[in-house]
């Protein structure tokens, strides 16, 4: 029986052979294509059901067309006032409002609001915050946070919801998180559920629940750290990322790391060179042995597949 925190393994599944698809499938497929056959839909209705269903569907379509015609077709999101008098554009929100692409939602010291992100989630907008709706499409939901704090909660497949800031883009991977940006365009992300990928100019930090990551103007995202990590480790990470902390900061990070802090070390692998990378690697394997099948040399060469595989095995401990 697997114990909590024990690495799960694909081993039992190795006993399942790959089953060769019979040739008859291709023959049937060609026949189906030649006959112009369509794939089966999601649902099949028998005779007694489809006629009323069609009538209902037609009514829904007509109602939908009418609804869109009276409300306009421009993409927009609903906004509810939570406190005070937030504004969209220059218009104050009474109880509810609608936000169009390009419009700013602004709260003062006494106001707060909640944005309904299409059908995939909500974003609470804290006081003294300025946020703009960039894109409102079913394939891309994007806000820009200029200043202040938001709390996002999104239930959707990865990469449908984004928050731009001056020093990063938070890419939702199905999660809940808080993001804040100050007037100097420095910020922080704290994830409470799921994962967020913080990206900027080719630099990427993957932040799981329970961890945070700082961002800095013109420098982008730093290295993620678990919120329950030692204070010395957190300070050293900030120094390493943004204050030219160098070797002394790295020494502290390595010394203060627990098994769970392999999150931080995994990110550092690609952010240090040569001997320092080897030191990070050695600390990682002292905390959590490298999984079978992964080649140490490939880790040190930063082979993307090897790093991804290791990260996903380590993630069971995060």
């Amino acid at each position: 029986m697997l114990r909590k925190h024990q690495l799960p393994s694909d081993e039992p599944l190795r006993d399942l052979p790959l089953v060769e698809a019979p040739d008859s499938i291709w023959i049937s497929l060609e026949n189906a294509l030649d006959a112009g056959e369509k794939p089966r839909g999601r649902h099949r209705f028998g005779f007694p059901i489809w006629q009323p269903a069609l009538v209902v569907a037609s009514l829904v379509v007509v109602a939908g067309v009418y609804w869109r015609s009276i409300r306009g077709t421009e993409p927009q999101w609903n906004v509810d006032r939570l406190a005070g008098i937030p504004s969209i554009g220059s218009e104050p929100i009474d109880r509810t409002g609608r936000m169009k692409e390009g419009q700013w939602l602004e709260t003062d010291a006494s106001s707060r609001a909640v944005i309904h992100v299409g059908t995939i989630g909500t974003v609470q907008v804290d006081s003294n915050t300025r946020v703009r709706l960039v894109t409102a499409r079913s394939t891309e939901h994007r806000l820009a946070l200029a200043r202040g704090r938001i709390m996002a909660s999104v239930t959707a497949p990865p990469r449908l919801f984004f928050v731009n800031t001056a020093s990063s883009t938070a890419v939702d991977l199905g999660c809940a998180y808080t993001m804040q940006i100050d007037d100097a365009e420095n910020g922080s992300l704290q994830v409470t559920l799921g994962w967020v990928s913080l990206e900027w100019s080719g630099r990427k930090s993957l932040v799981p629940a329970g961890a945070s990551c700082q961002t800095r103007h013109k420098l982008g995202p730093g290295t993620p750290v678990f919120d329950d990590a030692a204070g010395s480790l957190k300070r050293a990470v900030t120094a390493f990322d943004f204050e030219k902390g160098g070797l002394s900061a790295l020494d502290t990070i390595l010394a203060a790391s627990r098994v769970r802090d392999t999150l931080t070390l995994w990110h550092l692998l690609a952010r240090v060179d040569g001997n320092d990378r080897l030191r990070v690697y050695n600390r990682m394997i002292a905390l959590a042995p490298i999984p079978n099948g992964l080649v140490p040399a490939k880790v040190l060469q930063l082979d993307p597949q090897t790093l991804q595989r290791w990260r996903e095995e380590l993630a069971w401990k995060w």
Partner: protein
Amino acid sequence: MVSLNRREITDDTIDACRRGDREAFRALYDAYKDKVYSICFYYFHGDSAAAADGTQQVFLKLITNIGQFRGTADFSTWLYRLVTNTCVDEARLTRARDARTAKEVVLDSLARPGSQEEDLVRAERARSVQEALSALPSKFRLPLLLRYFDDLSYEEMAVALGCSMGTVASRLSRGHRMLASKLEALRGS
């Protein structure tokens, strides 16, 4: 993980499929048919008829909808999304078939009378894994099969399964634990 000589599917192949080039479609089919069939086979409890039907539906959907593939995701992620949807839809439509016990079907498909001792041991192991896998609810079965047969990343699986990465991680974790526990029970009995 299963290792395969996977033919590289290029943008040209996909473009040719969009234009209705049957040869290109065949190349694409050949590259993925065994993985798709295997996932369907184990998802439908070793029922080869259901697996063949499911595989045919997947590729029929693929060729019908390939114009909708915009290349924003990896092709294989898009394909596995079709596999996932097809498996779930087909299982819903054929609940009676889905309810067949794993044991009766697996015996048909994996046991090979007259094979060598080693083959028999391997078949026996495969049979118990298949039986344990079949006993898992489908929401745990699918992530395990996607992970094993094409080593998809959490993010790719989340797109294919239409859920969050956290959900994928938790279903994989629970799926592995349930599988290990069922195997232990099977092998102990």
